[in-house]
C-alpha cells in the first residue's frame, strides 16, 4: 500500500520535473519548492546524525575534550547571526581556509605537478615500435604545447604563439572526447527514468 502510493507520488513528481522542458509552470514550481525544502531537511538531519554526532558528541562523551575546540569555533561561526559581534566568526573561517591552504600547497604540487610530470616522462624512441614512438612523441609535444598555452606572462606571438595554438588544439580534442563520451551517460539516465515511468509505475514494459 505504502509502496503503491509512493510510486504514484514519485511518478507524478517525475512528470512535474519533465514539464519544465516545455516551460516554467506552477507544477514545476511546486516540485521545485518541495524538492528544495525536503532536500535541505534531509541534508540537515543526516549530517546531524552521521557527522555531528560521531565527530563531536561521541568524542566529547568519550572524554576526548580536545574536540571542544572544534565546538567552540563552530559556535563562533554562529555569531554571524548577530551583526554586532559577527566579525568574530572570521576566526573560524580563518581556521578552515588556513588549514586547507596549507594542506593543498603540497597536495596539488605533488599529485598534479610532480606525479603528472613523472607520468609524462616517457622514452621518445621505442626501438622497433614505430607507432609507439610516434604516439609518445605526440604526447610529449602535446603536453609541451598545452603547457605553453597556459603561460600568462608571455604574449602568444610568433613561434611561442604557434606552440600555444597547437596546445589549445590538443585541449579541444580532449574536450570533444569528453563530450562525446558523456552523451552516453546522460542517455542512460533518461532511460532509467523512462523505465520507472513505463515499467515500475505503469507496468507497460518489463
Amino acid at each position: 500500500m505504502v509502496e503503491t502510493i509512493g510510486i504514484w507520488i514519485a511518478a507524478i513528481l517525475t512528470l512535474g520535473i519533465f514539464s519544465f522542458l516545455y516551460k516554467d509552470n506552477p507544477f514545476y514550481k511546486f516540485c521545485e519548492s518541495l524538492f528544495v525544502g525536503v532536500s535541505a531537511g534531509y541534508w540537515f538531519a543526516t549530517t546531524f546524525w552521521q557527522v555531528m554526532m560521531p565527530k563531536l558528541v561521541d568524542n566529547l562523551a568519550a572524554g576526548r575534550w580536545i574536540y571542544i575546540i572544534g565546538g567552540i569555533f563552530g559556535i563562533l561561526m554562529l555569531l554571524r547571526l548577530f551583526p554586532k559581534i559577527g566579525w568574530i566568526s572570521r576566526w573560524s573561517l580563518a581556521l578552515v581556509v588556513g588549514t586547507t591552504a596549507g594542506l593543498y600547497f603540497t597536495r596539488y604540487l605533488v599529485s598534479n605537478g610532480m606525479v603528472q610530470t613523472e607520468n609524462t616522462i616517457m622514452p621518445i624512441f621505442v626501438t622497433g615500435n614505430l607507432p609507439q614512438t610516434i604516439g609518445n612523441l605526440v604526447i610529449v609535444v602535446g603536453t609541451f604545447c598545452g603547457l605553453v598555452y597556459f603561460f600568462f606572462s608571455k604574449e602568444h606571438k610568433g613561434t611561442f604563439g604557434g606552440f600555444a595554438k597547437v596546445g589549445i588544439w590538443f585541449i579541444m580534442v580532449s574536450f570533444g572526447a569528453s563530450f562525446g563520451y558523456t552523451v552516453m551517460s546522460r542517455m542512460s539516465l533518461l532511460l532509467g527514468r523512462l523505465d520507472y515511468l513505463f515499467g515500475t509505475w505503469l507496468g507497460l514494459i518489463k
Partner: protein
Amino acid sequence: MRKTLPFAIVTGVGFFMLVQYFVPREEFEIIYEWSLDWIIVIGCFAMLLGLWSLTMASIHKVQRKTPGWGYSVIALIGLIFMLIVGLYPGQASLVKGSIFMLFFEYIYIPIQATMFSLLAFYIASAAYRAFRARTILATILLVSALIIMLRLVPLGPLSSVNQWLANFILTVPNMAAKRAFWIGVGLGATATALKIMLGIERTYMGRD
C-alpha cells in the same frame, strides 16, 4: 583582533599544515587529524547558518507576499516536516522504512533522478545549437566529439577505422592535453594556496 588575528590564524595553521607534511612524527599526525575533525565540526555548526538563511528568506517572501510566495510555504513545510521526522525519532529515522526515509525514497530520489536525466535533453540541445564550426577550435572540438560518438553507431566496415581513430584520440592527444591541464591546475592551486598563506590574497575575509 578584527583584522590581524584572522590572518595570524590563516598563516599559522597554514604553515603548520605545510610543515606536518614533511614530519611523520606522531604529535604532528595527531594535531593534523584533530584539525581536520575541527573543520568538519565547524561545517556542522555552519549548517545552522544555512538553515537560518533558507528559513528567513522563505518567511520574508511570505510576509511581503512577493509573487509566488505560496511556493515558499511549500518549501518551508517540506523543510520543517523533514526536520521533525528526521530528528525527533533519533537515529532510528535513518532506518529504511521510517517516514523520513520514505520521503527520501519517494520524493527526493525521483525528483533528483529526473533533474539529472534532463541532461539527456540538454546535451542534445547544446550539441545542436553550440556545435557549429565557427572557428578552428570549435571545429576541432566538434570533430573529436563526432568521432567518439560514432563509436556507438554501427558503421559496417568503417567501424574498425573509426575505432582506431577514437582510440588514438583517447590515448594520445587526450592524454597530452589532460596532463598539461592537470599540471597547470596543480601549479595554479599551489600558487593560490601560497597567496592565502602569505596573506597576499585576503579578499575573501572582510576588511572592516
